[in-house]
């Protein structure tokens, strides 16, 4: 399995897939889930990241999402950017079908 969590990374956000349709979602500051990375809550440092992940967990037993996990991001002038190719693709959609996935809505 591809390594998609980085325990040492400092700045991270929480993502999961939505139970009903599997769509990619991000955990927000308001404590709910958004389809858009820009809405996500970002945490710095090991402790805060662990806290963020913990606060996302109740959504699992509430049958909202599957398997939430932390992933590394950078924040550049307010824009949240995933560090890995994998998370960039999850955020946008397949790189070979720009008409599909979330990128389709942006286009």
């Amino acid at each position, binding site marked *: *399995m*591809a*390594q998609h969590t980085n325990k040492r990374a400092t700045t991270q956000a929480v993502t999961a*897939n939505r*139970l*009903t*349709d*599997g*769509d*990619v979602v991000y955990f927000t500051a308001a404590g709910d889930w958004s389809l858009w990375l820009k809405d996500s809550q970002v945490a710095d440092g090991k402790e805060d990241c662990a806290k963020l992940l913990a606060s996302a967990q109740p959504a*699992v*037993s509430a*049958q909202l999402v*599957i*398997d939430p996990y932390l992933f590394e991001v950078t924040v550049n002038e307010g824009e949240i950017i995933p*560090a*890995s*190719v*994998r998370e960039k*693709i*999850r955020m946008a*959609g*397949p*790189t*070979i*079908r720009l008409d*599909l*996935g979330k990128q389709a809505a942006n286009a």
Partner: protein
Amino acid sequence: MYRYDEFDHKLVQERVTQFRSQVARRLAGELTEDQFKPLRLMNGVYLQLHAYMLRVAVPYGTLSGPQMHMLAHIARKYDKGYGHFTTRQNIQYNWPSLEDIPAILDDLATVEMHAIQTSGNCIRNVTSDQYAGAAADEIEDPRIWSEIIRQWSTFHPEFTFLPRKFKFAVTGMHTDRAAIRFHDIGIEVVKGTDGKPAFDVYVGGGQGRTPMIAHLIGKAVPAGDLIAYLEAIMRVYNMNGRRDNLYKARIKILVHSLGAEEMKRQVEEEFALVTEQGIPFLPAAEIERIRAYFQAPAYETLPDTSDALDAALAENRRFGDWVKTNVAPHKVTGYAIANISLKPVGGIAGDASADQMDLIADLTTKFSFDEIRVTHEQNLTLPFVRKDDLYPLWQALEAAGLGDPNLALITDHIVCPGLDYCALANARSIPISQKIAERFADLDRQHDIGELKIKISGCINACGHHHVGHIGILGVDKKGTEFYQVSLGGSADETSSLAEIVGPAFTEDEIVDAVETIVETYLDARENDERFIDTYRRIGKAPFKEKLYATH
């Protein structure tokens, strides 16, 4: 082709009801994801990067026109207007919602299709030769035996929680288009001593992290013994296959650690005990019943040559190229086997849009006795086309972007979904395939290079068959960046060989040049009309390696 009777229908419908209740329990919170996962996997539902994925079984790669229409309908109604044909001769939908899957299964059941055992550690969809029933030297149509195995393996109570997934491939002749030596069990129909069909049984082939070529352990197993023999292999594997390590759990590892001789001995011992019990596996009448479904279609008596074909060949060069690469000889005079490339330059290997599926369904109803085959190389085949009809068939295909004359050429790749879809991927596969295809887009050049099979996987699981590519490309992840490792000299046919890694991996920007260097090296060394694989086998890895890494 096989048609369900009342029993097959009932069982598939009961399975849909069962799965519908499992989905309902999950959505109602009665099942956790951990509890639900094994259940959804038993019915081909994965969770990928962007969404769920549903894998629908196409038993031994055979589809009828109405079935293909249904696949198109599902793509439109529940998905995003396309489907992906895989090396398991199945079709995958990349965007279904979990809530819709029971309804999709209902629709599939109306055309005798399902997603049963398309994942999980069970016996998976049986694959076969796409030229079954149409190839000249066939001993018998392998689909008869594939169907028998399909039924025997469906909900087999003892073999549903095996150490790992289990794949069968069956071919009806020695020429191997089904890669039987790279399956857990590969079966070749041979002539038994009594002149009747019997089976050579190969065990322990596979790709993945530890690629291996299967060993022939059962020679000319008689038809009446086949299921007992398979049951013996499965039991030896179920009891003795490793369960402590995911990567050592396939039967190939068991065969490797026991040695083929010892495996054979254990299977024969178990087989003797199984037959002693006298369990009736397969009434002779049942073999005849299934055989009857695979009788030849109502061929016309035709001359061997076709004036219409000759005229079209004289007139249209691209059609001529297509006939050269995509059309294969048929066992019946006046007929041909037509292959539809799902590898247009710039496209996505194995993908077909709903409109394309509908068109192909209509074309096969019109031109090929209503049958379509899915190939493990991710193309489609119309197995029974009159030579007279080849040109109108091709024209219709060409108009829909399906007329590329590139079968088995350097732009016809096996490509796994890779990091664009797959949750297990290390790197993308599809864009690499597209870039290589663009570089070699020129048809004259493709035809000059000749048969060259490139196979690309996005991770070590090798769904893109890179171990058996003439050129194999494996995506690897180095600190979050995609790299591509090249291997050479693999082959999935009856001359089976595993590709050898040629050296350090290339970056995304270097990989296409690397392929070109390999091709140039081959063209320089080629003698007469040697294929790439022949040249490679003659000169070995060294000259390629030298050229590839000379400038580094």
